[in-house]
Every structure is written in C-alpha cells, then in structure tokens.
C-alpha cells in the first residue's frame, strides 16, 4: 500500500509540474485531469472516500469539461470535423 501511495504522490507532483511546462492549453487540461484522478485515489487511500468521490466528479469531471468548453470558446482547440457542417459547405 505504501508503494502505491508513494507512486501516486510522485505522479501527482510530475503532473503538477508538467501542467505549467506543457506547450498547448489542451494538453495542460488533460494532464490536470489525470492529476485530479490520481488525487481522488489518494483521498480514498487516506480513508476519505467522501472527498474522493467529490474530487473525481468535480476535479476530473466538471472542471475539465468547463475548461474544454472555455478552450473551444477562445478557439484554442482544433475543431473536430463536423459532418453536418461539411455537408452544408
């Protein structure tokens, strides 16, 4: 158990550093998501399942979705080819 805990903590630190070093905002958000997911497992290992569920739902889920929506709004994300739009054009 100790080893898994240490591994997860190292993973979290690596993620936190690489978020600020990543070149594109999209990859930063995805790394942030992975960090939140590891953090939720750490909460459960620390015997705080309440926090684990909340971290997984809010940190990894809703926050990242909001950031994706914001990235799409400022066009920082490459557009997915939209079938409907292609047909119209």
């Amino acid at each position: 158990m100790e080893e898994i805990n240490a591994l997860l903590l190292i993973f979290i630190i690596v993620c936190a550093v690489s978020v600020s070093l990543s070149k594109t905002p999209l990859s930063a958000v995805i790394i942030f998501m992975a960090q939140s997911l590891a953090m939720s497992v750490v909460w459960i290992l620390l015997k705080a399942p309440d926090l684990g569920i909340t971290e997984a739902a809010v940190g990894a889920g809703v926050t990242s979705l909001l950031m994706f929506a914001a990235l799409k709004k400022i066009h920082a994300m490459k557009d997915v080819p939209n079938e409907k739009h292609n047909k119209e054009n």
Partner: protein
Amino acid sequence: MRSIIKKIKGFIDNGVDPLGDEMLSDLEYTKVTENEVEIAPKLRREPERIKNRKLANALYTVSAIALCFAMIVILTWNVNGLPFFGGADTLVDSEVGRFYIENGLKDTGATNIITPIILSYRGFDTLGESHVLFIAMCAVLILLRSAPVNPENHLQAYDAAMESDEPWEDDILKAFGRVLMVLIFVFGLYIILNGNTSPGGGFSGGAVLGAGFILYLNVFGHSAAVKFLNFKTMQSVTAAALVSYSIFKGYHFITGFNEIESIFGNGTPGTIFSGGMMLYLNIFVGAVVSMTMYSLFVMFRKGDF
C-alpha cells in the same frame, strides 16, 4: 497595438493559437515587421521606459519565485504542527472532533459521521455554500451573456440559439452514452440517498448527477436535453431547493435550540430514513449542485441565455 501583435506572434511561435480564426496571415506578418522598422527610431528615443519595463519584469519574476518559496516554507512548517495521521492519541487534544465521534450517532442517527457534521452541526455553513453556488451561477450568467436579449421571447431565442450548435452525430458515442448514462444517474442518486449511511452526500452526488446531465447534452444534443431541462426548470428547481433547504434548516434550528422534539426523529441508524431530515437536506443540496454544474456548462458552451 504593436505589443499585442508581437505577443500573438510569440504565442504562435510557441505553438499556441490563442485567437484561432484571427491568426495573422503571412501578409500581415510581413506588415508587422515593416512597421517595426518604422517605429524603431521612436523607441530609441525613450530608452528609459524600456529600461524601467525590463526592471519591472525582472522584479516581478524574482518576487513571484520568492513568494512561491515563502508559501512552500510556511505550508510545510504548518504541516509539521498537524496531529499525526492515524495515531491512537491524535484525538485526545481535539475536543470538537471527540465530541462529534462520541455523540454523532446518538444525536443524529446517521452512521456516516461526515454527513451530520456537514448538515447538522454545521448546517448553517452548508446553507451558505449552496447560496454561494447559486450566486456563482447567476454571476456566470451575467458575465457570459453575449447575445442581445429580446425581453418578449428571450427563452425561445435562447433555445433556438442552442439548437444551432448541436454535437457531432456519432453512433459509437450514442451507444456507449446510453449505457454509461444509466450507470452515472443511478450512482449519483445512490450517493445522494445514502449520504447518511455511507460515504457521499448531496454535494458529491449532485456533482455526479450534473456530470451525467452534461454527458446527456453532449451525446444527444440540446434539442433532446431541452425536453426535460430548459432554463426555466433549471432556475425553478434551484430556487425551490434553496427555499426548502432554508425552511427545513430553520425548523431544525428552532427545534434544536429550544430542545423541542423534531417530527422527523432519528430513525434506525443504518437505514435510508435515518438521521432525521438529513435525507431531505441531501436531496435539496444535490438538486442545487447538479443544476449549477449543468447550467455552468451550458453557459460556457454557448455563452448566452
């Protein structure tokens, strides 16, 4: 203006595209470099300003690094003062924690000790948190509203605007979404309803439910989601939940302070209907949180109401 263009140039060189469609074309790029040559003599006339700016930038960097290290030192120093994790005598010097553990089950009848702390002993804080969420939702609504509002039928105008931005039709996504959505909704409801007997509660369950609504919107599109969740239902569910929470909590405060027997009782510990009114409070908090998450996403997605 020139500095802004230079900044954008720097972003593009670093592989970041902050403005997307408004990216500089090659033609404009050369124009910028020509302008630079024209403006250059002007710049040479005020070297003081540039010097000051460089000094300010260096100061900013140094102070940011110093602040970060100061925060690291302060936080690490404070962690040393915390009680040892999982120690047998950790709770000896914490009167509040010991009180909760010794009297929590007897006072409230909930087996998950976190829930009575959040909803009963510190229910006033949770009431404030729910209102903060509601205010955050209103603030995002005010800030992100970009379309001209037609007071007569702006709800219909909003729905029409949303329909133009339907997601990509994908059969695989739809097939998986149908299976996943049932699991997510059932899990969210389970967390809310079992908040007083097992880990979870209104906030985490509501967040899971909200994520489920967002998944539904992304998989089946706005035209399907608006059939059961439009702006009006969102607002009325949130307002009704907040008002009911306040009324239930007010009743709880009155009976608790005057030591009157509450009509909810404590129930049998371990069952869903235990812990007095905690089940209902969890449902209200869950409704507020899920609606807030969903509406935040809707507003970030389209940006107008």
